[in-house]
Structure formats: structure tokens, C-alpha cells
């Protein structure tokens, strides 16, 4: 299954929880967009589909 996490193709990613774990161990201050739409934390275990793009975001200096 081809899943993109923060712009990079990743293997072995079945859920959003997997996608988050692939890029960070932090849980606080993290938000996820799936194909551009916000996914609440309560839905992070829902399965991903081939071609899905996941964005895992957090706070950074700016503004």
C-alpha cells in the first residue's frame, strides 16, 4: 500500500496512528490532516487506503 507521510512515501503504514509514530514520538500538540481534511485524534485508528496522503503537524516558531 502506497501511503505518503509528510510528503514521503512510507511502507508498513496501516493507520494514522502508524503514520504519526513514523515521524514523531510526541503526542501533545500534534494534528493530522488526511488528504487535506482534519482527522480528530479519536479517529486516528481508522484504516488508510492506497494513495492516502497524511500530514502530521505541530507547533513551530513563526508569525
Amino acid at each position, binding site marked *: 500500500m502506497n501511503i505518503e507521510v*509528510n*510528503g514521503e512515501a512510507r511502507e508498513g503504514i496501516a493507520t494514522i496512528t502508524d503514520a504519526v509514530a513514523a*515521524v*514523531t514520538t*510526541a503526542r*501533545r*500538540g*500534534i*494534528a*493530522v*490532516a488526511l488528504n*487535506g*481534511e*482534519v482527522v*480528530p*485524534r479519536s479517529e486516528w485508528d481508522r484504516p488508510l487506503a492506497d494513495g492516502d496522503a497524511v*500530514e*502530521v*503537524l*505541530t*507547533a*513551530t*516558531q*513563526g*508569525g
Partner: protein
Amino acid sequence: MDQRTTTRTDADLKIADKTFTSRLILGTGGAANHAQLAEAITASGTELVTVALRRVDPGASGSILDVIERCGVELLPNTAGCFTAEQAVRTAKLAREAFGTDWIKLEVIGDEDTLLPDPVELLDAAETLVADGFTVLPYTSDDPVLARRLEDAGCAAVMPLAAPIGTGLGVRNPHNLALICEHANVPVICDAGIGTASDAALAMELGCSAVLLATAVTRAADPALMAAAMRDAVNAGRAARLAGRIPKRHLANASSSFDGMADL
């Protein structure tokens, strides 16, 4: 130092349901590292700092969220880098999910060179976010009509620029800024373009309720010292505004009476 500063007679800054003693809001962009940023936050006396939302950096050491928590200040997420209303609205929703706050500094940029706001997209995003329950603080151009439209849309404050982001050019159009302050019924926060302390003082003298700045502090040679200077400038400008400045005159007006002058 005389302790009769502005706070003695001045009300706190109220934005939506929150009150702040400090009238300086600090952006965090441009700081060399988290330690330097923490020093600047503390020296500035601010109670509210802005952060951007970006992809997690697996190699990052420490989080800016820890800095904010240690400094005991509140976080104001922003939509920095967004060029369309749709992008900004999505970013605001992600920020709400990430940080559990409905507050958003709304930035919708219309031009890569000047980073000036796109007024059409900005108003569109503001309307959408207000309808979705956000407390919206829009970064806007120094246009009194647009400021009014944003206020009418339900924004909790309006944040006109002094000059384009990061330029340090100071208040380019004091007349427009004063007009915005004169007519607004929500706090006017001068956001962007401040270069040094006198710029911040001028914005407050013109009637702004607060000043938001980042680069002027984070890229100063001594960020903590500039942060302290900005704190004092905002307080001084506010005090001068409340005190009521003398009218400007074309010719001199002697402060010493000529009565009783010796015939020499």
C-alpha cells in the same frame, strides 16, 4: 524608577473572553534557538505568543510548546504561510485540534515579495472561521474599510500592519492606523513591520491597544534587551496616549512667563 506606570490607571487589555496585563504580543519567528527565545519572552513581559503550524521535524530537539509552557504564557496559533482562504481555514482547524484553542491569528498572504495580506481571501476566511466558533485575530493591511469589514464579520480584534512583515520600516501610514483605531470597537493590534522601540511607542500613541512583533526582537543583536525595550516602549506609548499629548504648534509657545522680567 517611578512606579506610577500605565497599569495604575489603565484597564487590562481585553480580547474576546481573555484579559492581559501586557500589551505586547510576541511572535516567535526568527529566534536563533529556544533558549534565546525563552529569554526574549521573559524580558518582553508578554503573556501571549504566536506559533506556526508545520510538518513535524523528526530531527528537532525540544518543542516550542515546552518553551511556552516554561515561560507561563498563552499560545496563539497562526496561519502563517497560507495563500488562500481554504488553506487558512484548514490550518486553523488543525491548530484547534493540535492545541485545543479556538484562538487563531489569521494570516492570508497575497503576494510572495511583500507578504501583504490578500484582503478578499482574508475576509472570506474570517467569515468562515467566525461561523465555526473561532476567535479570529486577522493580520490585515492598514485599510480602515477592510478593518471595519473584518470587525463586522465578527473578528475579536483587527491587526493592521505597520509595514510589511520583517521589514522593520515602522509605521508607514500613521494616519490610516489612527483612523482604524478611531473607528474600531474591537482591540486594534499593530502587527508587523515594527523595527525598533520608537515604532512600537508610536503605534500605541496613535491609539493601538497592543503591538505584535517578532523579527524586531528575534533578529536584534541582543534579543532579550530589545524585548525589554519593546516592553517599555509599549508601556510608554500607552501612557502617552492616555495622558493626552499637547497639540502641535507652528510657532514657539514660551513655557516661562514674561511677566516680572527684569529691565536689563
